[in-house]
């Protein structure tokens, strides 16, 4: 081993605690980077593998009722390789002991000849016997959410007739990785997918020899849009409701949004960690180089070239980085496995596939080496400039000058201790700034990682207490006369009722299209409001459509432009409608009109397709029972239950991220504060020991050193609040938002938590250093020049 290498090892060992704390900051960055990105790629791979093996459809079409005999026309669509037609119907579901109504999506399957697409994987139990009308397989998540056992009986309202169905098995489907009635929230307790014998289902809904749902698989390279458009043309006469590609399929869309979040987290947060690590490394190396002036001079005098010396210190930095990368790789692997596991559970992928790509580790290591190398080089440049003779001389005493406040004539306000603290700060502003920025960065990370809970809370509050004030939403599958309102108002417990209208539509502007529904609202609607993220109510312009801002952007239209609305129901009117305005709504891609205008557009009389009910809580069970008896009101949503489910699901993920990020942030804070304190101590040990000799107590001396850090922490925390707000804003802007656009809301307790985590980390590191102050060498200091 070369002597310089031996020196390297001993220097590292002498600074082991500092080395460890910097390596840990790097490890957090690498860990976050690898964890998030490996989760991202593993989930993409799991999903691709699942979609492949289950032969997930490429195009999804629907209509009212089409005869089976047109199937050949579907097969003839260019690019189509396989066609599957089936019957899918939603119906009301009841379980003993559950008052609020649940929805069952019934999907007809010939169990003797399983479908070639969207193949089910049996998770437990067995398949229904072919032809056994009363047996069903349910999606696994519903069984788990409801704690059901196989053999359970449930009642389903099939076309107005209550039928008993027996649960014989559970299954996973690529189509319902995320089972939801809509709205982008998992809804496992209230929404069941039931696979039932195709003939039995057709018989129950008078769909023999007909279908209302189509799945297409395409040849490699075929256009999804082209196939969907062709499918629409075929289905149009049969009440087609517009085909969508896989990209817009609800379950897939939510899964994609969740997976893509990983990529954003995986890049934004680790970048902060690596930058902070580079800063700390820079400061530590500067100190190391300054402390080793004499040694460097000796090496130069002995004839070592600058390059060797620079390399020596670069190696010092590299060892720390590589140590960090090693720990970070382990951490990333652990985190990635945990997160992939968490998501695999949420998504119910049949196989758990986790892999950490070597190329990702290499990319992370290179990024860390580059960041730290930059920091190290800045420190080393100073060494190379030193002439050997100059380096052998002790550095001249540090030059200080009076503080700004003193120059302004307020010197008397300060004690000696305060002066020392402030002058030190003023003398090394760059280092103080780096410390402050590092600590502020960790505050920001805690906020950026934990504000989601606030955002979700606020979102829930707004969505369910202000936007949709009704607890019960009744949907009529076929439009009914406005008179239904009088009937609903008479139901038990209904305090207020309002009717609404919704028509599925394809909006077109130039070559861009989007499938959604136009919602009709009364001018004076109270139970359903259109509010933006700032709670401003949007006004409906007579005769015009109001679009969610994101939808308007997707269509490339602005207020005053026209969009072509192709109504996918009733008379299937297609007409141009003026865009009356846009609204920054938090959920979905919606289009709004006044009910009267919408019905006029559809060339229909004054009909409605849904109602919102404001209910007196106490009589809610009675109302729900009464609603179950109205066959025309096939679908009933209870907002409160939706809210509870969502809150529970999100709580677990939020807790996991909050914990991980808080630990990461505390690591940064410790890394910054501890290293700073150690450097300060190393630089000022002589001065502090002199004060101890003069009779200053340990506490008084500690104040001088830690007071400076205290000031830096105090300055950094509010700065971190601002940075945290910015980071949260960045996340909100980067995350995909076509399902839900989470608002930028941060409550005071989140700031408090962030400040407390970082302050605690600061205090802990200060206490470790304080121990060293107590053990200052008082005798040694008198015999050495600084």
């Amino acid at each position, binding site marked *: 081993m070369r002597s310089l290498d031996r020196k390297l090892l001993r220097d590292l060992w002498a600074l082991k605690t500092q080395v460890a704390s910097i390596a840990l900051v790097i490890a957090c960055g690498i860990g976050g980077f690898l964890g998030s990105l490996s989760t991202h790629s593993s989930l993409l791979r799991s999903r691709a593998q699942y979609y492949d093996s289950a032969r997930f459809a490429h195009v999804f079409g629907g209509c009212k009722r089409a005869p089976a005999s047109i199937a050949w026309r579907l097969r003839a669509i260019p690019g189509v390789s396989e066609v599957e037609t089936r019957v899918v119907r939603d119906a009301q579901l009841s379980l003993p002991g559950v008052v609020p109504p649940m929805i069952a999506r019934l999907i007809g399957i010939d169990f003797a000849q399983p479908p070639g697409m969207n193949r089910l994987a049996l998770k437990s139990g067995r398949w229904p016997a072919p032809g056994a009308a009363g047996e069903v397989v349910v999606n696994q998540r519903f069984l788990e959410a409801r704690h059901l056992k196989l053999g359970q009986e449930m009642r389903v309202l099939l076309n107005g007739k209550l039928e008993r169905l027996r649960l014989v098995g559970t299954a996973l489907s690529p189509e319902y990785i995320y089972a939801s009635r809509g709205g982008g929230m998992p809804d496992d307790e209230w929404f069941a997918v039931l696979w039932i014998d195709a003939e039995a289902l057709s018989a129950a809904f008078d769909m023999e020899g007909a279908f209302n749902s189509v799945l297409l698989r395409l040849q490699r390279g075929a256009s999804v849009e082209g196939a969907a458009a062709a499918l629409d043309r075929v289905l149009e006469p049969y009440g087609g409701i517009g085909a969508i590609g896989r990209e817009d399929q609800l379950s897939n869309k939510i899964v994609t949004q969740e997976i893509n979040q990983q990529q954003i987290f995986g890049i934004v947060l680790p970048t902060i960690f690596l930058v902070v690590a580079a800063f700390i490394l820079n400061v530590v190396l500067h100190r190391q180089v300054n402390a080793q002036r004499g040694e460097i001079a000796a090496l130069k005098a002995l004839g070592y070239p600058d390059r060797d010396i620079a390399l020596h210190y670069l190696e010092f930095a590299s060892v720390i980085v590589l140590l960090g990368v090693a720990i970070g790789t382990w951490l990333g692997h652990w985190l990635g496995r945990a997160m992939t596991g968490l998501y695999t559970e949420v998504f119910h992928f049949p196989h758990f596939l986790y892999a950490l790509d070597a190329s990702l580790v290499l990319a992370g290591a290179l990024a860390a080496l580059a960041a730290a190398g930059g920091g190290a080089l800045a420190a080393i440049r100073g060494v190379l400039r030193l002439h050997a003779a100059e380096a052998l001389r002790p550095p001249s005493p540090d030059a200080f000058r009076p503080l700004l406040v003193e120059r302004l004539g307020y010197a008397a306000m300060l004690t000696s201790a305060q002066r020392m603290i402030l002058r030190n700060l003023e003398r090394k502003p760059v280092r103080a700034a780096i410390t402050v920025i590092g600590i502020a960065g960790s505050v920001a990370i805690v906020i950026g990682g934990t504000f989601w809970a606030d955002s979700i809370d606020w979102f829930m509050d707004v969505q369910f207490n202000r936007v949709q004030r009704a607890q019960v939403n009744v949907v009529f599958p076929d439009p009914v006369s406005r008179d239904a309102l009088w009937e609903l108002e008479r139901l038990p417990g209904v305090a207020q009722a309002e009717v609404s209208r919704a028509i599925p539509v394809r909006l077109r502007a130039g070559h861009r299209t989007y499938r959604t529904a136009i919602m009709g609202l009364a001018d004076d609607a109270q139970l359903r409001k259109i509010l933006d993220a700032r709670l401003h109510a949007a006004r409906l312009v007579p005769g015009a459509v109001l679009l969610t801002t994101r939808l308007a952007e997707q269509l490339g239209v602005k207020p005053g432009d026209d969009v072509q609305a192709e109504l996918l129901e009733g008379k299937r009117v297609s007409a141009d409608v003026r865009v009356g305005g846009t609204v920054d709504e938090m959920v979905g891609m919606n289009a709004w009109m006044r009910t009267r205008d919408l019905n006029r557009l559809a060339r229909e009389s004054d009909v409605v397709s849904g109602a919102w009910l404001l209910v007196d809580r106490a009589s809610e069970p009675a109302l729900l029972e009464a609603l179950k008896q109205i066959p025309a009101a096939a679908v009933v949503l209870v907002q409160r239950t939706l809210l509870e489910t969502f809150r529970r699901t999100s709580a677990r993920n939020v807790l996991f991220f909050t914990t991980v990020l808080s630990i990461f942030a505390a690591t940064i804070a410790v890394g910054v504060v501890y290293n700073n304190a150690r450097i300060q101590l190393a630089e000022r040990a002589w001065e502090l020991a002199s004060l101890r000799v003069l*009779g200053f107590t340990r506490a008084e001396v500690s104040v001088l050193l830690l007071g400076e850090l205290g000031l830096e922490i105090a300055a950094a925390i509010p700065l971190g609040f601002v940075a945290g707000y910015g980071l949260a804003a960045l996340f909100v802007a980067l995350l995909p938002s076509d399902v839900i656009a989470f608002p930028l809301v941060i409550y005071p307790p989140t700031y408090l938590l962030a400040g407390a985590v970082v302050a605690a980390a600061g205090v802990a590191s200060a206490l470790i250093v304080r121990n060293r102050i107590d053990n200052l060498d008082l005798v040694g200091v008198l015999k050495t020049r600084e």
Partner: protein
Amino acid sequence: MSAPVFRARAVTKIYRMGEAEVQALRGVDLEIGAGEFIVLLGPSGSGKSTLLNILGGLDTPTAGDVRFLEHDLSRADEAALTRYRREHVGFVFQFYNLIPSLTARENVALVTDIAADPMPANEALAWVGLGERLDHFPSQLSGGEQQRVAIARAIAKRPQVLLCDEPTGALDYETGKLVLEVIARINAELGTTAMVITHNAAIAGMADRVLRLGNGRIVGEQRPERKLTPAEIAW
């Protein structure tokens, strides 16, 4: 000799340096009277600094008794020693040990802030002839000036003893003499007991009593017949 301020009996100090044991003091007996000017001479490693550190409350003996008036320094804990240094001892070091971020006046004020009955910082600096350079930082002062600030800082608390470890070690001849004059004046005019460690045998002429140390013991003691002024000595 007036009533003793320091009384040391059979003082032993053993340092452990890794696996080796170094016996720095081997049973030192000593009494120092109030207002005495003592010079400690001896080669490196003879134990002078160890003795000064123990008398100054920076270190405690391994065995033996050390008393300062009624204080038992050999059995005092860290807090008591800190208090002792704070109230009774003024130190002057070879390398001045000034706080670079404080001006001359503020360096002195550092001590007057925590002392019971200090003299004003300005007065202490006037004593050492630095009344004009109050607001200069250490980096703006010469070595001799810095040492005089250190002396001002040491005497500002009106200590009973002034302990100086090689106070002229880092200074040139002229400046060194200036510093010695200040120490002599303080001893004479304020009656402060002074103890100076030096390698420089010429300084011994200024002392009331000269102690020679060798190998951890006091190997010689001598009282010059006539105490010289700093102006009278040369090296």
